[in-house]
């Protein structure tokens, strides 16, 4: 039997995570963010744009897709804050993940906490979110310039619970001085879920982290009121070695 040709990312590992932050030892345990509002949308984009941007350890979802996520967290041990990120849908072995290529936060101290805990490298930004009867709406502005406006129109209620699945995100961090993909993993307890049609009045691709990655075809948009439990980082992945070949391990 000859080895089959598989569909992995094509980005050389040595070009990956050049700005990766060192991970510090986690002591916070689980962090619960009560009554958060999560605005999430998924779009398709051309596979040809994705393969050169994923490291060789990851394979893309088929079709290629990217997700936009905005969390508005009104209460919890970190205080009130908002955070947002954009990521490409990918797989570590069989597991669905999103590889972050841009992240934003509206508080510097929370941004530093996310960076130290998960390696998420957030840009300081103004982040707004609002649910109205006809739509859910989110906006990110950096230095007064809008870089993202995400709208989910005609929201319809869904049964909360297992109808909604958010993929955990991966981002590059330095662990023991090596560039490593670290997973930011959360558990969700849904109170209310709406689904609608996503639209992007503003998407500044370069400012969103990669000029070559833009949403092309809308899949779905959701707005949820949810209790989020941020779990300590548990897994890491060598960006050069696929999970099924032993690239994934515990931190």
């Amino acid at each position: 039997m000859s080895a089959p040709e598989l569909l992995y990312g094509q980005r050389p590992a040595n070009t990956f995570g050049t700005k990766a932050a060192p991970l510090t030892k986690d002591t916070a345990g689980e962090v619960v963010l009560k009554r958060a509002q999560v605005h999430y949308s998924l779009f398709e984009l051309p596979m040809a744009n994705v393969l050169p941007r994923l490291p060789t350890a990851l394979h893309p979802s088929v079709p290629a897709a990217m997700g936009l996520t905005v969390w508005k967290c009104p209460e919890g041990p970190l205080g009130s804050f908002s955070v947002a990120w954009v990521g490409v849908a990918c797989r570590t072995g069989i597991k669905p993940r999103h590889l972050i290529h841009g992240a934003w936060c509206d508080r510097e101290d929370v941004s530093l906490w996310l960076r130290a805990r998960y390696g998420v490298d957030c840009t300081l930004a103004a982040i707004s979110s609002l649910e109205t009867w006809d739509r859910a709406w989110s906006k990110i502005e950096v230095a007064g310039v809008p870089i993202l406006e995400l709208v989910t129109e005609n929201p319809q209620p869904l049964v909360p619970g297992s109808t909604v699945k958010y993929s955990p995100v991966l981002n590059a961090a330095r662990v023991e001085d090596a560039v490593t993909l670290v997973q930011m993993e959360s558990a969700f307890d849904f109170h209310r879920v709406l689904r609608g049609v996503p639209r992007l009045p503003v998407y500044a691709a370069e400012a969103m982290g990669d000029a070559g990655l833009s949403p092309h075809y809308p899949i779905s948009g959701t707005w949820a009121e949810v209790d989020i439990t941020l779990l300590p980082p548990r897994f890491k992945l060598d960006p050069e070695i696929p999970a099924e070949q032993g690239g994934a391990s515990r931190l």
Partner: protein
Amino acid sequence: MEFGLIYELSTPRPFTRETQKAVYENAIEQVVLAEQLGFSSVWCVEHHFLEEYSHASCPEMFLTAVARATSRIRVGFGIATCVPAMHHPIRWAEKAAFLDILSGGRVEFGTGRSSTWNELGGFDAVIDDTKKTWDEYIRVIPQMWMNERYGYEGQFHRMPERNVLPKPWQDPHPPMWVAVTAAGTELEAADRGMGALILSIADVERCAPRIAAYRERVKHATPVGAFVNEQIAIANWLYCHPDNALAKQRGDELVGTFGYMAGQTIEVSEAYPANNYKALGLLSSLRPDPSAPDAQKKPPESGLCFGSPAQLIETCRRWEEAGADQLVFMVQAREHLPQQEVLDSLKLFGREVLPHFSRQARRPVAVNA
């Protein structure tokens, strides 16, 4: 208990013409052998755009080729997708009847609704409606078969009175089935008097209560067609080898390959939250569940048919005692195994396992079958 084969027609990259042809030809060769060995059915899925995982976009063509190369084995749609963006119900009635004639009355008509964003999104289907459209299709298709002329006003289609041709060879019509993935769908099958083609259970102990519930519920069925098709077929894997350990190793390879392929697709539940899609599709219990806690990541092994003949006699006996009428096997994944190894596994199963089981299934009454 009876035994069958089920095909996804998974295909390795690179997708050359020669590779694609080999996948189809190898599958047909396996079915021809299986018929000689005493297998009683072959099923073919319908999938679209599922790279590597399944290149079975036209099950009716595969089944026609199989039917013309065989004489007894029954040919099953596993399943015909009942979604308006993909197929009109008239077309399914026509295709199934056409194949029923060409096969001499060997069609099993499995129905379903698709479970991936790849497919439903690709056809721009209305995802929220797929349960409703399935219910409308399964009611009207038997009427098209049984009535000389038929017309209807449905929620999703309407047709003035027409004679849908040809009529099937089996009288009054082929047995009707539904693919069962989410828990509870077997009861929907029972309520409608349809067979349950169970694609989501690999564990005998977990399956037994669901089979019992189906048997109880089907007693009170209101059949969508002319008769109740009280049958339960369960999708499974097969690799039979004298060396039990080697068989299990090969089984792990098949499951791993299958999981890799299925894992790349985008399930509806991952992409398009909907009240009618809460479970993983794509044979979720025959592959590791990506969303499960770590301890449950691997599929349950108690019912998978990887092993020596003695081991498989025991496993199949447990399925029989649980109430299954048929086990339908996947025997290949992306041509991972050499064709000769697949044929050898089938021969060993046919020679040393299959004779231990009665072939008297709960066959429904279909006069010409």
